[in-house]
């Protein structure tokens, strides 16, 4: 019972605080703006990072958790061109060494990559072309043949003009109709579509989409498309062997390249997890900036709330005196002003949530903000914390006023 009465008392004080807020809505609005911005930024940043994360997961699947890529250059965001410019291209011959000496590599394929304009009828588009071995069929990651078939060893030997296309090609060139058996022109030469890949969606790869892809025999690529293009060796191992397979591949490559012990690698063995480290540091940078902005706006709003509370205490000194004369304890007054501060900050936080909600509705497709009860809960916690922190000093000043001095205040 005692406890219930105390609660009742707190609600009373909250009601008094709310009434004070109702009497000055403009000030409350301006003060809580900082919190609105803070809550808004933090939600957007969280949403941004988590959606980048999702994209990234897809890209990880695209590169595969069981694949190593022997390339000229490391996958890196801070690419030092001057350091790498003299590196030799990856030679197809090196594959022999790897298949011959490796214990941990189960399968290998050359992968030549180039960007070429493809056309069908009147539609034309830039396409990413991969020239690969027949073994690449089992090395596709993040996708698979959904329709039709992969090319055969025979077609590879005979340098046939057959291609397997990604979902973008189907949608862009064939209006979503079955592309099998149709003919696409790449760099002026016709190719027959024999297979189609499962749709992967957007990812963190050059060009954004993972589906803008055409796969053909590397022999055909070399003879008909271009002698150039960017060569990599794709090695398939097992996820649990990645680290050791990577070391092994490096060793074999050094031998193949006849590097002396003190010479640096003039190639790179890449894998999705190296990419992940790069990515994580980017993510941390984004989150860092975001939380800095949020932190600053929260601090600014805390100072704003504190300021408003000082003004409020000053303006209502006489009221405080009267309430004390009528039996309010110092604690009552403290709670009254703390609730006012907390209420102001909760109003700001709620406005932030509403803003986020509106933006979510407007940008649902671009920015999948996860708008949930947890966000509301955390916002509530943050607001209560900021309100109490910012309101504490003014509220204590109010509570410690001596009744008669407060009553005499003009």
């Amino acid at each position, binding site marked *: 019972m005692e406890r219930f009465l105390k609660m009742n008392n707190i609600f009373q004080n909250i009601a008094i605080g709310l009434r004070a807020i109702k009497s000055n809505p403009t000030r409350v609005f301006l003060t809580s703006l900082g919190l609105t911005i803070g809550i808004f930024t933090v939600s957007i940043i969280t949403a941004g990072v988590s959606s980048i994360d999702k994209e990234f997961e897809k890209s990880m699947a695209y590169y595969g958790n069981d694949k190593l890529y022997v390339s000229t250059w490391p996958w890196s965001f801070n690419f030092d061109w001057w350091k790498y410019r003299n590196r030799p291209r990856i030679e197809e011959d090196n594959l022999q060494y790897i298949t011959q000496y490796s214990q941990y590599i189960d399968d290998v394929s050359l992968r030549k990559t180039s960007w070429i304009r493809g056309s069908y009828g009147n539609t034309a588009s830039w396409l990413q072309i991969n020239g690969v071995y027949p073994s690449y069929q089992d090395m596709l990651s993040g996708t698979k043949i959904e329709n039709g078939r992969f090319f055969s060893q025979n077609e590879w030997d005979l340098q046939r003009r057959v291609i397997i296309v990604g979902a973008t090609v189907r949608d862009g060139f064939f209006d979503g109709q079955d592309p099998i058996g149709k003919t696409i022109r790449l760099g002026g030469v016709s190719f027959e579509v024999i297979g189609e890949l499962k749709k992967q969606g957007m990812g963190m790869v050059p060009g954004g989409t993972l589906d803008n892809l055409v796969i053909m025999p590397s022999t055909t690529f070399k003879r008909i498309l271009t002698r150039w293009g960017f060569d990599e060796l794709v090695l398939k191992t097992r996820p649990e062997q990645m680290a050791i397979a990577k070391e092994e591949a490096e060793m074999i490559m050094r031998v193949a390249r006849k590097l002396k012990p003190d010479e640096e690698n003039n190639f790179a063995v890449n894998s999705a997890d190296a990419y992940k480290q790069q990515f994580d540091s980017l993510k941390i940078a984004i989150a860092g900036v975001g939380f800095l902005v949020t932190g600053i706006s929260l601090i600014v709003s805390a100072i704003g709330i504190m300021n408003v509370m000082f003004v409020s205490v000053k303006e209502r000194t006489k009221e405080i005196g009267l309430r004390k004369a*009528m*039996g*309010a*304890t110092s604690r009552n007054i403290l709670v009254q002003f703390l609730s006012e501060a907390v209420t102001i900050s909760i109003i700001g936080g709620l406005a932030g949530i509403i803003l986020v909600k509106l933006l979510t509705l407007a940008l649902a497709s671009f920015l999948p903000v996860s708008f949930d009860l947890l966000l509301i809960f955390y916002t509530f916690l943050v607001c209560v914390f900021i309100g109490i922190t910012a309101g504490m000093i003014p509220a204590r000043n109010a509570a410690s006023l001596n009744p*008669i001095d407060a*009553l005499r205040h003009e």
Partner: protein
Amino acid sequence: MNKKEIISIESISKIYHLGDNVVKALDNVSLKIYENDFISIMGPSGSGKSTLMNIIGCLDVPSKGTYKLDNIEIDKMTDSDLAKIRNQKIGFVFQTFNLLPKLNAVQNVEVPLIYSSLSKSERIAKAKNALNSVGLGDRFDHKPNELSGGQRQRVAIARALVNSPSIILADEPTGNLDSKSGLEILKFFDELHKAGNTIIVVTHEDSVANRAKRKVEIFDGKISKDE
């Protein structure tokens, strides 16, 4: 007289230091007040009447001396004990009414009840009752600026009475009122006195003082007459 002594003031002083100036608002004052006393306190402006009232009402503390209320030394009480006394035992009426301008009559009268753990409906019922008893049954929703001076003071009296305190302190309750409204206010004090309350009124007017059964006069912070 074997009336119960409820207030005992023993050689209290209230001293203000303003720079080099020392103001003795109260200078070694002693006073005993008994249950159901009706006391008037008179004296020239600045003599210390309000200072004394505020100390009696536990709104202020003396610089020296002891003040016992119901035999308990005020000095020894905690903040919440004092709040409880102000809430339950003492009803204060101010010269300037001191109503909260944004609250209506009922809400103003509710203020002391908020700090005495009653349910909302009980509070409203009690507040309306108190307003009825001061003849303001038809002014519940009026804000202070929608009431006359006399009505405001009646709201203030309703507020002072709403927790049925045994002691009523009024510091020039009619000072801001015309004589007719003043008379109405004074009637309430008579009634309260008859009902057994202890009443202390600070006033400048003989007509007010004459209603009291005991007249105290203060001059320069000292009690000059007590009869």
